């Protein structure tokens, strides 16, 4: 084997490195390494003259590998690899030794820092000495997108993508799209009607030639990798053909089953055959198999008898399709923090204690009370209404530690809507703080307090119980220091937001991480907020964390833009630092197959085989294999051994 010819370039970074590290001594020490043919230092290696000097040195000394001792590879690894490439080297022969963040900036003793910089540089030199020239792996792209979740986030992302010319498959678990937003009455801070602004978008989705809408459907399995996913989607039967259904309501009239209507959060009732709400998309009745008296065999059959359009078919079977897509947008939204956690607030126990979404339905013109605020127990107009914020939020000891972010605003909105409906009523709000950051938000809250005369009480509620048709609310006003007792007609709880049911499952299916609270984890909290850690899977809306509608829409559009960027490339490239099997040593024990987080390894004729595109190069396989039969290119055990030796002056 011919001897390596490595060049080492030690950067002063002005005085950032040179003040603590004797850069000339580092260069000198590197020059004595066997594989190093040229070693020099320069004030700013990343500057134009610095980079040109590297190129010149590569040419003058016929270098085959380069080590740059400088700042963190996160900053300039790409710079120097590109630079090496422009000098005719393979970019993967260039290694970075981090002697700034991990050395000069954290040590004061010049002697010790210099010694450490030498150790770090030497280990990079040893590693570079065994680097292979690698080429990025080219991967084709399927120019279609899977959007999971048909709330405002999924709708916005789907429309943006479809309008950019990409085919979209929009999968929604429920019978209609619209999500939680369509349940809302008005939206803050402008109080425009939620259905008025969302319905047109829903209709556009249903009519868009580029969008395939799959309601009552769930993603069961996803295999593949960025640019080339295969999604297995299972659709439950609706039993009513949307193309034939005339929405005449005849079927519902004859249906003998009455169950709570989830769309109205149980405040109203519906039949087993029903339309979730008038603006539902697809615009069709649907038969709820779970509450129907029986489909197999047919027990009742009244709806089918009465349907003149012949839209009802009891024999429809669940259907599973496989969709090829290049990217996935996860917009699975939120659920309210369940009532089973919140017994002390009387939710689920007292009829007139409602959660925020139930109150939205009471205010909504399409709601069970046709927009009149009437309390569920006796359908009388409530005169004293208590709104309680932070129910389940900001309570690390018992509930969720995080702030659900939108409750301050929607509680202010609720109080105003109530006052608009019942001008002589009294609204009380218990709060911890008011968090009203956002355009027009603070002004909105001020108007709630001042114009609409809502009484804001700073403090937590200690107990709630029903007494003689009233709900007694005990609390403490920490500003006045007084105990407060309110005889309320209705209590509305601003429940915490939590990831929707099924978020854990879809995260598992797609192998994207979740944060400590169960929301889908972004790849970087600041710089990659709409990407998941898994390449090709993007996040939008409240599935990623509590957020309001404008933020959700922005994130959905951002995710769409990221997908467009991804799918607009003629082909994708994948890091070539992937695992490689040393077949002769492999016995097919499958330990690496089990250990691989990406299912990138499979057995073929009794030997492990790596799918280069699925492999992310984490190296867990290599550390698991007892036979040294699998290793990651350019991070091999041999390279590690030599680096360990270099670090220990061995």
């Amino acid at each position, binding site marked *: 084997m011919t001897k390596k010819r490595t060049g080492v370039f030690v950067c002063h970074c002005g005085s950032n490195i040179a003040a603590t590290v004797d850069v000339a001594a580092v260069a000198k020490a590197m020059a004595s390494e066997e594989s190093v043919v040229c070693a020099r230092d320069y004030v700013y290696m990343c500057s134009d003259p610095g980079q040109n000097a590297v190129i010149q040195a590569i040419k003058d000394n016929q270098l085959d590998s380069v080590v740059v001792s400088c700042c963190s590879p996160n900053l300039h690894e790409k710079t120097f690899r590109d630079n090496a490439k422009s000098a005719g080297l393979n970019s993967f022969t260039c290694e970075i030794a981090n002697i700034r963040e991990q050395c000069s900036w954290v040590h004061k003793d010049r002697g010790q820092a210099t010694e450490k910089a030498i150790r770090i540089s030497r280990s990079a030199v040893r590693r570079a000495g065994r680097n292979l020239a690698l080429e990025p792996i080219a991967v084709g792209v399927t120019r279609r997108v899977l959007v999971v979740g048909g709330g405002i986030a999924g709708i916005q992302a789907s429309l943006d993508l479809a309008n950019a010319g990409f085919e979209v498959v929009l999968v929604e678990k429920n019978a209609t799209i619209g999500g939680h937003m369509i349940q809302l009455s008005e939206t803050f801070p402008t109080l425009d009607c939620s259905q008025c602004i969302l319905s047109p978008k829903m209709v556009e989705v249903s009519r868009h030639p580029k969008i395939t809408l799959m309601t009552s459907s769930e993603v069961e399995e996803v295999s593949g990798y960025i640019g080339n996913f295969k999604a297995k989607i299972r659709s439950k039967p609706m039993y009513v053909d949307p193309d034939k259904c005339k929405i005449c309501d005849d079927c519902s009239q004859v249906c003998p089953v009455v169950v709570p209507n989830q769309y109205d959060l149980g405040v109203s009732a519906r039949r087993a055959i029903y339309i979730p709400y008038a603006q539902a998309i697809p615009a069709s009745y649907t038969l709820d198999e779970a509450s129907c008296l029986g489909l197999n065999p047919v027990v009742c059959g009244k709806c089918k008898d009465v349907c003149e359009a012949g839209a009802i078919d009891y024999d429809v079977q669940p259907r599973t399709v496989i969709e090829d897509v290049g990217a996935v947008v996860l917009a699975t939204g939120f659920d309210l923090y369940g009532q089973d956690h919140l017994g002390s607030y009387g939710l689920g126990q007292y009829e007139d204690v409602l959660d925020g979404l139930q109150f939205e339905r009471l205010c909504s013109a399409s709601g069970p009370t046709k927009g009149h605020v009437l309390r569920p127990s006796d359908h009388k107009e409530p005169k004293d209404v208590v709104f309680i914020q932070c129910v389940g939020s900001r309570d690390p000891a018992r509930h969720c530690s995080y702030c659900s972010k939108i409750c301050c605003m929607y509680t202010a909105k609720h109080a105003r809507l109530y006052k608009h409906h019942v001008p002589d009523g009294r609204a009380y709000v218990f709060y911890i703080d008011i968090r009203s950051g956002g355009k027009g938000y603070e002004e909105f809250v001020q108007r709630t307090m001042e114009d609409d005369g809502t009484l804001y009480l700073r403090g937590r509620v200690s107990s709630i119980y029903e007494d003689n048709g009233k709900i007694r609310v005990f609390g403490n006003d920490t500003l006045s220091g007084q105990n407060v007792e309110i005889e309320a007609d209705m209590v509305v709880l601003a429940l915490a937001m939590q990831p929707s049911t099924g978020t854990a499952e879809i995260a598992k299916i797609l192998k994207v991480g979740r944060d400590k609270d169960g929301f889908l984890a972004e790849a970087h909290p600041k710089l990659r907020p709409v990407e998941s850690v898994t390449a090709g899977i993007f996040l939008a809306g409240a599935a990623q964390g509590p957020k309001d509608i404008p933020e959700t829409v922005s994130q959905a559009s951002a995710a769409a833009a990221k997908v467009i960027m991804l799918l607009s490339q003629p082909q994708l490239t994948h890091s070539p630092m992937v695992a490689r099997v040393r077949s002769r040593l492999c016995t097919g024990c499958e330990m690496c197959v089990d250990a691989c987080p990406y299912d990138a390894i499979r057995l073929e004729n009794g030997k492990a085989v790596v799918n280069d595109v699925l492999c992310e190069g984490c190296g867990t396989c290599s550390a698991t294999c007892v036979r040294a039969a699998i290793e990651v290119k350019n991070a091999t*055990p041999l390279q590690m051994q030599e680096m360990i030796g270099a670090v220990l002056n061995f």
Partner: protein
Amino acid sequence: MINPQDLCTRARDLLASGEVRAVVGYRRGSRGMAAEPVVITKPEEAASLVWDPSCVHNLALYLVADRKRLAHLHQTPGKPIAIVAKGCDARALVVLMQENYFKREEVYILGVSCESTGVWDDQKLMQRLGCDSQSLTGGRFDGDDFVVTTATGEQRISAPECMADRCLECRHPFPTMNNVVLGEEKARTLAAPFAALSRFEEATGTQPARWAFWQRQFERCIRCFACRSVCPMCYCEECIVDSITFTVALDTTAAEKANRVRWIQRSATRSENIGYHMTRALHLAGRCIDCGECERVCPVHIPLRLLNNKLEKESREKFGYEPGVSIEIASLVSSFRDDDPNDFIR
């Protein structure tokens, strides 16, 4: 109780019917009452098979050897091989199948239950009788006892007095995975699991005492690799800590030769011996089924079971993992649980 004649009959029938191409079992050795492994291929050889307390070897090793031989000859296995397997041997087979080294249908397991006893330990025999198995002229199982024949005549001894430690501590003396099994499954507790390990841990409670003990052990090692040779789990083509096993094939390139990692030196010094034994123990974590063969064959009497038992115990207690019970599960180090110990991490 097993009648050894039944074993011979089974083996003979298996060979006569052509169901298996060979039977791996035990026969009388050349000296005294020490059994030796044998591979028979003809029905008439079946009469030579024995089953008695001297059947100490883990015969799974011979299946591994057969598989390697076939691989070198580029031959396919064909008909299954039958193997006489005690509980521990059968667990070894489970691990080998879990690692896809064999398919279940390639092995015919002629299980033998150790019932209420196990195999004997030569050193303990020596202590009890003043002679080892090679000086005995007879020996058989009899209920909870061994009946041995010495120069002075037949003698009945309580089996636990002379049983190998690993048999006393054995939790699975019955080969659960089998095609046919002789003898019964008997509930028994002769010693607590990991009893020898616990005794050692108590005796050497402090870290300097541990080191003083192991320093002596590891300095003694001559790196003869007998422990590796006898271990059915050490079936790697190359041993990553022994460069002499690095094979050179026709297609081995110069770069490949140069790029081999030599984790430890070949010299039998303490540091390198520790490297070898630590690596071996870690590579056996979740795979060692405590057949105790490594310790039995060690010419310098290093208590190697302690190392393997330590990790077996940790795996069982901390990870709920027991080797050799299921072919289907992922191996110890390629799986995890959310509640694996975390308190050793800062």
